[in-house]
């Protein structure tokens, strides 16, 4: 499929890899509501037809937290946030930034970035995504 890269898998199925990495949503053809997982009917209007829709790769940080205490196995600190990508809300980490309140700001402009988060026992790389400052 589009975005398949040999030796790599995306962290989640709504991340499309390749030359132009981006997120893709299931969009209701009736009302335009977007979902990152599968739905039997639209939660907004109950219509049942969906199409794949690319999500803007630039956005604004609407909310964030700097997590210092997490479940075992989750590296801390990290910045978790909600990014408004041209009208579509996306959950993601803010990456490539110092994780403190002096650097992370509400309303800051960010863009999608990908990174290799690990390699499995067969040599396949998993690629994750986050949002980095535009400047």
């Amino acid at each position, binding site marked *: 499929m589009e975005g398949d890269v040999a030796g790599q898998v995306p962290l*989640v199925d*709504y991340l499309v890899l390749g030359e132009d990495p981006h997120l893709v949503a299931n969009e209701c053809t009736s009302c335009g509501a977007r979902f990152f997982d599968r739905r039997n009917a639209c939660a*907004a209007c109950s219509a049942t037809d969906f199409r794949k829709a690319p999500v803007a790769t630039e956005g604004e940080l609407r909310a964030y*937290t700097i997590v210092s205490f997490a*479940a075992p196995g989750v590296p801390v600190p990290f910045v978790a*946030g909600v990014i408004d990508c041209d009208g579509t809300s996306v959950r993601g980490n803010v990456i490539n930034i110092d994780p403190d309140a002096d650097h992370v700001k509400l309303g800051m402009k960010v863009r999608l970035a990908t990174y290799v988060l690990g390699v499995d026992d067969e040599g396949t790389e998993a690629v*994750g995504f986050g949002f980095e400052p535009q400047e």
Partner: protein
Amino acid sequence: MADDVWILGIHMTKFGKYPDLDTVDLAAEATMAALADGGVTMKDIGVLAAGSLMSAGLGMGQQVQKQIGQTGIPVYNVANACATGATALRTAIMAIKAGECDMGLAVGVEKLAGAGLLGGGGTPKGEKKIFEPHGRYGAVTSVDGRIGTETMPGVFAQVGMEYLHDNDYGKAPFELFARISEKNHSHSTLNPLAAYQKKMTLEQIMGDVMIAYPNTRPMCSANCDGAAAAVLVSGERLKTLSAEQRRRAVKVAASVLSTDPWEPACQILPDVNTLTRNAARQAYETAGVSPEDLDLVELHDCFATAELVHYDNLMLCEPGGAVDFFESGATWRDGSMPVNVSGGLESKGHPIAATGIANVWEICHHLRGEAGDRQIPDAKVGLAHVIGLGSACGIHVLERSAA
């Protein structure tokens, strides 16, 4: 069909640590005390609704019956996240309203002392690591910490930060939210049933262990053990009871449960706002009161960041005005709209399924004039609010008896 429903008896255990008691013991203690408070016995009760979120499959209602009286009445075991207690209360209220019986019981209990962080999970340990897609998002490994956070302190931190973003708050968020926590910890010193009754300075709160910025540990709800129970009665049946029972009875002026309607961002960050506003609107209309009529409010401060947004959601302030409202001092116990005079979930504690009845107990305590040192003078009307992620919101508006 019953026109009105009253709280005849109600009780909460002290919240804290009970290493030697199990959930059934705690639920039975609260239930027996609520029956005694109402001057009735299990023989009077026609329906029982029970909640215990962490052991939702164990049939808490039947276990309570076995502990204190098996009379064969219908039991509804309910689970609705942090709104479980309010849901149990409302289930008993609905049965009475429907005319199925004229007296009912609701109980909520939880053992959470030492539970630690709720929500979230790390990478599962496997024999061999192979990246294969799993679950609804086709994730090849754990996403917690990689795509945002699933921990409750982090989720609710974002809820508060989003409010500041949407209302163009320009100052440092940390101190603002810490000051809300300072208020609730100060209030808790007057509540002997609170898990923690320790006054904390702003410096202590801000200097404590950071969990998820801007929430430090004392800004998070306290995991603890506890139970609360209430006896509900129809207005008709209440008329047949003693003058003392009628005097102490508290009217349920509104009982509302809502879930979140579709909002574009609700799949990304739980929308705790819309369903609370909807429930509040309905509650005020049903009760025939406006926010200004409230003498006190117990709202769901599962984190300091959550309390702020609910000032606005419950329409205690102008839309968008929650920061100014808090900074005016209104929500301190000597302010114009005392909020969480019990100490709130941050210090009283949050044994999940007990919370939605314990909040109502706090309001009833003031309306009956029995709140001792922390009594809000001449309290006539109060509101209790809980929210459980998923989401469910329960609101009860309570009125002092005129008798």
